[in-house]
């Protein structure tokens, strides 16, 4: 497996020096709510994503992360609120125009009939093409470059179905690259991947230099690789800010219901979370863990 083929021009230390929060706002969400069948899934979500930044969406299962992302890529229509993408109300964009601006990598990809990796990646051209347009040599080059970027050039003629989990995920990111979006939305891109791929996928996404929103379960990963974090709990924004601002011991305890100790990561100086264990035997050991943390801290 040629992992080294992935070009991550970006190292962790660069992240501090990259132009943070350049003044333009890529995505602005205001007062977003979504109710279905009388149940409130999302309520009053407000946040803005500066151009070129990577926002990590964190929160427990069922908090509404995927729902929020689905609102952002218009798969569901929010009950209330306004979403603005580079000063365009996303409701007003045609499906095609929207897809030219926003690419999505989903959590679960369904079974594909019969597609090679190259065909899957070339799907990213769909919104850019008219009815009878054929792929130009320029498009072919773009596809080849995207495949090279994710390190899958050698697998381009293989069946997508036969790729490993990490390769599938990278192929989907290559498709998103071919789509040339201004905003990339990823729904748990690191799911089912081993540690090395988790880091690699997110660093790869970072290196693209476009605005990114990704929902991430691994808090340490989110802390290390995102410019800012949005913590969602029960459909509401619980906290938003830099990883250091968001990831505090108290908040992790409140929202996720676990005991954790937050320290500074030796390399990137952002929060490093250590969890405490022993939740199975009622409250007793929970209390133990708490005292332990008290002693340790």
């Amino acid at each position, binding site marked *: 497996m040629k992992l080294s083929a992935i070009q991550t021009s970006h190292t962790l230390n660069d992240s501090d020096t990259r132009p943070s929060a350049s003044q333009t706002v890529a995505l602005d969400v205001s007062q977003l709510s979504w109710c279905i069948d009388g149940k409130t899934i999302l309520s009053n979500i407000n946040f803005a994503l500066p151009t070129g930044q990577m926002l990590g969406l964190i929160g427990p299962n069922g908090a509404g992360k995927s729902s929020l992302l689905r609102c952002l*890529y218009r798969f569901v229509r929010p009950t209330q609120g306004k979403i603005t993408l580079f000063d365009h109300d996303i409701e007003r964009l*045609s499906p095609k125009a929207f897809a030219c601006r*926003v690419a*999505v990598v989903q959590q679960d990809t*369904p079974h594909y*009939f019969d597609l090679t990796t190259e065909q899957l990646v070339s*799907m990213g051209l769909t919104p850019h093409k008219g009815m009878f347009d054929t792929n130009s040599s320029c498009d072919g080059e773009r596809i080849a470059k995207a495949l090279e970027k994710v390190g899958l050039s050698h697998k381009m003629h293989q*069946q997508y179905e036969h790729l490993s989990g990490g390769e599938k995920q990278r192929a989907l990111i290559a498709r998103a690259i071919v789509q040339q979006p201004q905003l990339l939305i990823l729904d748990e891109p690191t799911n089912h991947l081993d540690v090395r791929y988790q880091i690699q996928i997110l660093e790869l996404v970072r290196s693209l230099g476009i605005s990114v929103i990704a929902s991430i379960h691994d808090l340490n990963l989110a802390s290390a690789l995102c410019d800012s974090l949005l913590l969602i709990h029960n459909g509401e924004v619980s906290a938003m800010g830099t990883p250091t601002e968001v990831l505090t011991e108290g908040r992790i305890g409140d929202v996720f219901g676990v005991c954790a100790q937050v320290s500074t990561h030796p390399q990137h100086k952002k929060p490093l979370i250590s969890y405490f264990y022993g939740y199975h035997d009622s409250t007793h050991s929970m209390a133990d863990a708490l005292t332990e943390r008290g002693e340790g801290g």
Partner: protein
Amino acid sequence: MLVALGIITLITPIAATSFGAANISFMDVIQVFINKMANLTQANGMTERIVMELRLPRILLAFVAGAGLSLAGSVLQTVTRNPLADPYLFGISSGASFGAVVMLTLFTGSGFFENAGMAANSGIFSGSGALSGLLWFSLPFGAFIGASLSVLIVLALSGLGLNSQVERMLLSGVATSFMFGALTSLLLYFASPQATASVLFWSLGSFAKASWSLLVLPTLVIGASLFIILGMKRQIMALQAGDETAHTLGVNVPKLRLNMLLLCSLITAILVATCGGIGFVGLMIPHTVRMLFPGRQPILLTALVGGLFMVWIDVLARCLLGNQELPVGIITAAIGSMFFLLILRKRRIMA
């Protein structure tokens, strides 16, 4: 593989024309074609008439039907993401059978149900009366009405929402299919034996009625559909990757799926009305093409292979029994399933 296909494509029209009851050789056919093209006055009038007025339209109709059914099957399999989808998925064939049976029982005068049938159709067919001479015309017409009816029911139930559109389509298709099946059986139960026999024969499909004038409508419809489908092929491809993915690629999923369903239903209804219910082609050919030519965008290929397959099936239908034609549907199902099993086996050995 592609080269072989190309050669078969070139040879098929001539070779297929030379098979049949009248003894016309391969060279005779070429002779006729050359004569026609050079606009020469013919030497052998009989041969030319058999070739030009009987066999050629028949071969073309078989080709158009095969191409249309495979195309519809392929598109439906993609847009519903159901590998078992075929052109008759949405109750089209049972709707068409029902329409045909209503017509048959009406015009062959089968006592009790004549009146019931008349009452049911009085709006449309008042005045056409029980003239059995109209049967030839009314059977495809009834089939078309029946097929359209079933599609309309399915469409009304499936709606435009993104959620579970496919499931609702498939389930309402199955339900519609059974409903019309039951109605057909009921009518046949009370119908005369001749009516039952002719419905059975009709439902198995035949190209025997082919003529140049009969060819016009199917050719136009299928040509236009092919054009539209080729134009939308990126969107159709994107649907393969799931509704949500297609949505993120800028495809208006419910609308595309509904339009494709309408288009495929139109193809199928026209074909069912023209040459009866020919099963298995729409299901099998797309899979066969996918297996034989992996990793291609198989829309044109599917249509071509389906057309050629049908032409040769029709040749078999004409030649297998010395003095009698076999219904095409029997052969497609028999040969098709064998061929399919063979390919599956071969693929397993290779894998």
